């Protein structure tokens, strides 16, 4: 189990964007990080990655896989060379290579190995990111908006992959706006609003009544916070 505590974090020292975010990461669970635009989801992820300029708190994580919101590719390398670089940097090259080629086949990129990913479509580039993140086996994954740009078959394959990794004991922090998808696969949710963690827990713990959808829970929780701040 790992505890994440971000007392405050932001892009400048005296202007924090996120404050008092504390949650734990348990083995074998998918945690949904949800919030509106500008709520602080990406800032929280940056704080966990160590790329946020100003962070005060305790963030210690094991080596993890990361799927960024926007594809990060090297302009002058082909897909096969991206995989080769990943394989060489990993501790078990043969296993990672086999897994990478399996994922490429799963996401239907196996005929594009010798092409530059920068010439791919948005969805194909996102698939490359999924291959690079999920080919090695980690105990923790951060996945930021993975469904953006994917076709329906790829979305289904990704959901199965995430559930499979969870069942094998990995922890996955999933930031997404696709609440109906998150509702079906996440074990717990972290709701962010204006840089503050306003609610966290399982779907059943957050529901006021049975079958209350996640979107309604989210609206209700934000309204409660807004009303509390006014009064």
């Amino acid at each position, binding site marked *: 189990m790992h505890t994440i505590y971000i007392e405050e974090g932001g892009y400048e020292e005296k202007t924090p964007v996120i404050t008092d975010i504390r949650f734990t990461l348990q083995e074998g669970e998918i945690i949904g990080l949800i919030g509106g635009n500008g709520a602080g989801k990406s800032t929280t992820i940056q704080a966990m*990655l160590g*790329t946020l300029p100003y962070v005060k708190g305790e963030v210690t994580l094991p*080596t993890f896989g*990361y799927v*960024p919101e926007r594809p*990060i*590719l*090297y*302009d*002058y*390398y*082909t897909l*096969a*060379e*991206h995989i*080769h*670089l*990943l394989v*060489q*940097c*990993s501790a078990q090259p043969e296993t990672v290579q086999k897994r990478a080629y399996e994922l490429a086949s799963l996401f239907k990129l196996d005929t594009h190995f*010798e*092409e*530059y990913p*920068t*010439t791919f479509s948005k969805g194909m580039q996102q698939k490359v*990111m999924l291959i*690079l*993140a999920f080919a090695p086996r980690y105990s923790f994954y951060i996945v930021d908006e993975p469904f953006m740009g994917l076709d329906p078959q790829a979305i289904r394959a990704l959901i199965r992959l995430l559930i499979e990794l969870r069942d094998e004991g990995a922890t996955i922090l999933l930031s997404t706006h696709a609440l109906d998808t998150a509702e079906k696969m996440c074990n717990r949710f972290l709701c962010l609003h204006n840089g503050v963690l306003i609610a966290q827990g399982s779907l059943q713990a957050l529901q006021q009544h049975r079958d209350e959808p996640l979107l309604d829970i989210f609206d209700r929780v934000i309204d409660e916070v807004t009303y509390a701040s006014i009064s």
Partner: protein
Amino acid sequence: MPLFRERLKRQWHSYKKLFLSVVDITIALYVAAFGAAALYYFITETVANGQYGLIRIIPVAFYIWLALCVGSSLYIRNFHEPADRLFTMHHSHFTDVKRQSLYYSLMINSFITALLVAVTSFFTAVVHHETLWLSAALFICVYALSLSFHILALLLQRAWLLLCIRIGIAVGFTYLLLVSPLLSILVSSLVFVCAFTYYKRILIRTNRFFTPLLQQEQTFAFRWERRIFMVNPDLQQYNEAPINQKKPRVFRKRYSTTVSGALVELCFKTLWRRPSYLNTYIRFVIIVFPVLFILPTWGSYLLIIILWIGLSHFSESMMTKLQQEPIFTLLHYDETMWFQALTRVRRILSVPIPIVYAVIVTISWLIR
């Protein structure tokens, strides 16, 4: 006049700023060291011995041509702002403005002639023409050249063809200056000027001059800006050259079997596939080679050392830039692997060429 002085000051200030942003300390050091070595050679081996060495070997025509080119460049850079052309374009239906542009160019050519007289006064001792007549001939030649360049730019759209024909015309005029009697130079230049002026008037009257010329200058200006972006490392991040191919043509195979090997492979494939890196490396290597045969032996060895330093710095800065690529936020590797890879890359890129050059210089010294 005060406005003109102000504009000149502003223009030189912006060119100086642009030049400083393009040149980094490595290139400046390289040029300064080479310049100092070359100057020392010229002073001790030639002028100090009462000989003019290279100046005797290279024809005077080359220096006159060089002066004409420098003069034309100064004329274009200092007196032709894009705003002038845009103003002319918007008022292209006003004949007065068009007429004034011709008078303006006459005034500019007078300035250029005065500049060239100062330069060519040195050559009057060699060529034995009277300075005054030479000035008049140069004035007409320069005017004729600039006139012809405009017309040719409109007629010939290919930049390389245009350059060759301009060089041909400049060399032709230079030859005339050196071998023909002055009267024939003046007559032929006047005929040339009249013919081109008449043709230019026809083009202006039929609205086929300013518009295509402005479009062409805009194209050349944007092309120049793109080249500046490609040279300056800081500006490159704002304007990267996209890859136009779907897949690489060569070196597609993966050759490495270790982490440091993979990083070295990344470096060399980037060097091959990224035109700006490859051009920089080739430029370093090619520029030095002919200079080795001009300098004295000790100068050549010094230049080889400078080349080695330059190539080492280039390989190091390339690897440092690669390490900052965002892709490495997704990969987990030992930092020591980068140092191993850097050492190997530096050794491969900066050692063989200087060794080969040193061998060539040594052999040529032994043969002498």
